[in-house]
């Protein structure tokens, strides 16, 4: 039986984010003229409690069965409005969101007329599409109470231990022959003055003792399929190959220190990196009295335009350690901006100054020149170039992504950024999550981090992962593609085209898509020549209706 479609439109001022550019009253008037619309309301903040209450009240009052909100981005706000629909007693997918903030008032803020016209178009399209919305259901699937942690540096080890302590099993993979990561090569960590060996030693011992953690060294991740709560993982350890099921995955693959090939006469002997200096510090033999450190070697330059966050503190820490070994050492640190952020870093910076370490600023335009036994630099105080004696030059190079970051990102189907660091779901509020649920990140794999930071990120990632692990099942909403078997011609187009490798041929020789796995990208829907794949969330009818509405004006 056909029910009458009754649409309510809610238009948000978003303070002045929208109403500063768009004429909301006009949009309301306009929306009232659209087919199926029975009520239109404007809200100062539709997302505020008052706004959502108004939606709920309107659904009851006007017996609405479709809700359209013209406001901001569905990325952040769709869940709120869907929940409001559900609370009002209609299927949350009878909801359509129109973005008149990012798409109108923000981008076209200098063209109010154009923005207004576009907002009308978008609202008209949204309302037209809403008429063809379909109710969607939620799926549930069982959670494998086990985690895979990739990388056994300080971050990976910390994460693994935290998850185990929360009562779950962990598979810990390390590609090197032993655990410890970058810290294996370090002398001491700042500011605790603990040796890196002690620190990782404690963790390794705890991991080896913990029966819930299975650690594989010399291991390589080979394949990951599945979805949150239910990932099938395959990896090798030496010649052996292993398969297992895990509910969550933590990426703690770390980073590497850049080798400064062709920079500042690097030779690994008189001109070395901080990592190479760490080895000398471990040995307690510096073999030099006049030391010059150069910061930002290969960082904050056009080819690598990021600050590696930790190198300044590494330089400061190591200059103090040199002073411990060679009391009368003369150390100059040549820097561009000292990144001694926070409390303890700034304190350590002062401590270095107190110990007689000298800091001289240089600019990107006139970098220091390393010559035999000396470093030349323009000194602003002297107003001229000066020559600093240097038996040893230490180059502070940035943390860069590992060579295998790209291949791991492909195996996990998670994104990396332009510098090949793994890309979190949201820079501000989801720093430890990937957009793909069930996969998390921490430590240098995300971005250079101090031991303290990597540790709390690792604990945090463990917490995020434990949210999934602490439940027996996970829910997945129905914004997924589904095959109408009767129309499938078994052409394999969907199998080939899916970036997540979800579609497969079932026992009847027809394509099948596991809803828990489908990411809802829609590529197969577009590709299927038989139009056998349906995307209830974005159906052809909906798109056609929206397009027709667009050109109907």
């Amino acid at each position, binding site marked *: 039986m056909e029910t009458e479609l009754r649409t309510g439109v809610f238009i948000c001022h*978003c*303070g*002045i*984010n929208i109403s*500063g550019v768009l004429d909301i009253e006009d949009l309301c008037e306009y929306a009232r003229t659209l087919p199926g619309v029975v009520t239109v309301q404007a809200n*100062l*903040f539709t*997302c*505020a409690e*008052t706004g959502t209450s108004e939606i709920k009240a309107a659904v009851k009052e006007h017996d609405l069965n479709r809700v359209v909100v013209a406001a*901001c981005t569905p990325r*952040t*706000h769709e*869940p*709120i409005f869907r929940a409001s629909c559900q609370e009002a007693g209609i299927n949350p997918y009878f909801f359509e969101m129109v973005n008149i903030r990012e798409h109108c008032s923000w981008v076209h803020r200098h063209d109010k007329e154009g923005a207004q016209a576009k907002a009308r178009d978008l609202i008209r399209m949204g309302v037209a599409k809403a008429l063809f919305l379909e109710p969607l259901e939620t799926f549930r699937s069982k959670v494998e109470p086990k985690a895979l942690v990739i990388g056994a540096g300080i971050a990976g080890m910390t994460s693994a231990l935290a998850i185990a*302590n*929360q009562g779950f099993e962990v598979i810990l993979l390390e590609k090197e022959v032993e655990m410890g990561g970058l810290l294996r090569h370090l002398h001491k960590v700042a500011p*605790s003055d*603990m040796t890196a060996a002690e620190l990782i030693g404690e963790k390794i011992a705890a991991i080896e003792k913990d029966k819930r953690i299975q650690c594989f060294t010399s291991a390589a991740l080979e394949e990951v399929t599945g979805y949150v709560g239910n990932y099938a993982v395959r990896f090798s350890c030496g010649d052996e190959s292993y398969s297992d099921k895990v509910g969550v995955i933590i990426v703690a693959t770390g980073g590497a220190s850049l080798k400064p090939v062709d920079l500042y006469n690097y030779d690994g002997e008189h001109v070395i990196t901080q990592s190479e200096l760490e080895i000398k510090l471990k040995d307690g033999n510096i073999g030099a009295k006049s030391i010059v450190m150069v910061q930002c070697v290969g960082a*904050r330059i056009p080819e690598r*335009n*990021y*600050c590696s*966050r930790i190198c300044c503190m590494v330089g400061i820490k190591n200059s103090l350690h040199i002073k411990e070994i060679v009391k009368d050492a003369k150390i100059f640190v040549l820097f561009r*901006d000292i*990144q*001694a*952020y*926070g*409390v303890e870093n*700034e*304190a350590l910076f*002062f401590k270095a100054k107190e110990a007689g370490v000298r800091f001289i600023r240089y*600019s990107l335009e006139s970098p220091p020149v390393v010559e035999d036994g000396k470093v030349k630099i323009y000194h*602003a105080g002297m107003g001229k170039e000066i020559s600093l004696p240097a038996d040893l030059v230490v180059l502070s190079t940035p943390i860069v992504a590992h060579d295998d970051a790209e291949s791991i990102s492909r195996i996990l189907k998670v994104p990396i*950024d332009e510098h090949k*660091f793994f890309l979190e779901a949201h*820079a*501000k*509020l*989801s*720093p*430890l999550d990937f957009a793909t649920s069930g996969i998390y990140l*921490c430590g240098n794999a*995300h*971005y250079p981090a101090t*031991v303290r*930071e990597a*540790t*709390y990120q*690792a*604990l*945090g*990632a*463990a*917490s*995020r992962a434990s*949210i999934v692990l*602490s*439940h027996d099942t996970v829910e997945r909403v129905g914004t997924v593609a589904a095959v109408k078997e009767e129309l499938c011609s078994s052409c394999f187009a969907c199998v080939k085209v899916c970036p997540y490798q979800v579609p497969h041929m079932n026992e009847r020789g027809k394509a099948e898509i596991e809803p828990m796995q489908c990411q809802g990208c829609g590529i197969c829907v577009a590709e299927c020549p038989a139009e056998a794949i349906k995307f209830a969330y974005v159906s052809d009818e909906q798109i056609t209706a929206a397009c027709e509405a667009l050109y109907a004006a």
Partner: protein
Amino acid sequence: MNKEVLVIGGGIAGIQACLDLADQGMTVYLVERLPSIGGKMAQLDKTFPTNDCSICIMGPKLFEVERHPNTQLLTYTEVEEVSGEAGNFTVKVRKKPRYVEEDKCTACGLCADKCPVAVPDQFNMGMSTRKAIYKYFPQGIPSVYTIDDSACRIFKGKKCNICAKICEAKAVNYEQKETVFELNVGAIIVATGFEVFDPSDIKPYGYRTIPDVITAMEFERLLNASGPTGGHLERPSSLKIKAEIRQLEKQIKKAKTRLKSLEKKSEESGDETRKALEEMNERLPVLQAKGASLEELRDIAFVQCVGSRDLRYNAHCCSYGCMHSVKEAVVATEHGSELQSTIFLTDMRAYGKGFHQYCLRGASEYGIQFVRGRVAEIGVGDDGRPAVWCEDMDTRKVEERPFDLVVLATACVPSKGIENLSSMIGFDLDENGFVKTDPNKPANTSVKGIFVCGCAEGPMDIPSSVSMASAAASMAVQTVKAL
């Protein structure tokens, strides 16, 4: 063993810790001393380096805290006493009376519309007013009104009763009393955040004596749509003149009416009023002209390290000040494309993901000027605008540069209540007054079962606070599960 956890502080760190715990099936009490959760992040206009609208991305989290079946939100509540040990803490809390029944109030706002008492709005850094019955901020959670008993007429023994009369939900209750009760929890997370340093301590910067010298947080509110100017970028002196003009116009109107009535009666002489009116009519165009000259905002100076990296005030770096100012400069330019922003800094600390590129873009796309040199003093220039004295460390020139507006990037200092809390619970503070932690166990305080996250531990940006909040949640769960 008690599976419940207490989170103290409802800023972004406390909220994230609370949600992580609740999502893991723990019962969480979130205590917030203010009428609403949200903390400092709720006051920000946008966030770096993505320029996300702060309350827009935070709003859903506020909602989630309130809706989550495993959380119990205790706003307007303070912790009074803590005893016990890891696994079994007894916490005495005191919930202040709102004089509005939380379960009845629908936040319709009618009461505030009619309330006759206006006081400075703390959320807008005192730059606008709110009523004695008020909502802490529009998106505040819980979405209920609160009566400020230090401002309300009823609590001053005067007659009023307007809000109670007008409230259709019958939510206003002047008789509401504070309640004191105990919670039993297995672990506690301290997420009490930070305070913004008061720069009036630094005399040469003229804060509170020169009108157009403001703090970065005040500037956030000036940029914000729900701020005192509704998001229209204006300097305080302009706002002040406008208020004066409004006042004068009112007085002129009054004087005119009075004059008319005097003319009718004709027995009294209107000379005095006429003279006053003439004087006001002369003054009005002068004020209007001055107001018009202040309307446009052409240039802004951002002064970095105000009270930070300064052994006289706070030795530490605030961690976010550089990026905060770059963001404010970018957002300001979006408000007025002709605007020129200049940032005076010592070291540019753009050490986070995407930060350096954000600064480069700030320079190339938004024309932000970066001057290396800490501002020595701010005076009033010959044209009446604030003038910044600074040595440009690159050109080695000492110059006085006037600006329409000067924004002070103030230090991040420990919250006022942290000392009290530390002595109540017994955890240590570091020499700067933040909660002391072991660098290798970053969320652990010196007391077992008590964890810390966010700026209570030390200055940090939002993603770090969020990460650390999750870390504290993990530690709390581990503690409770190990018992």
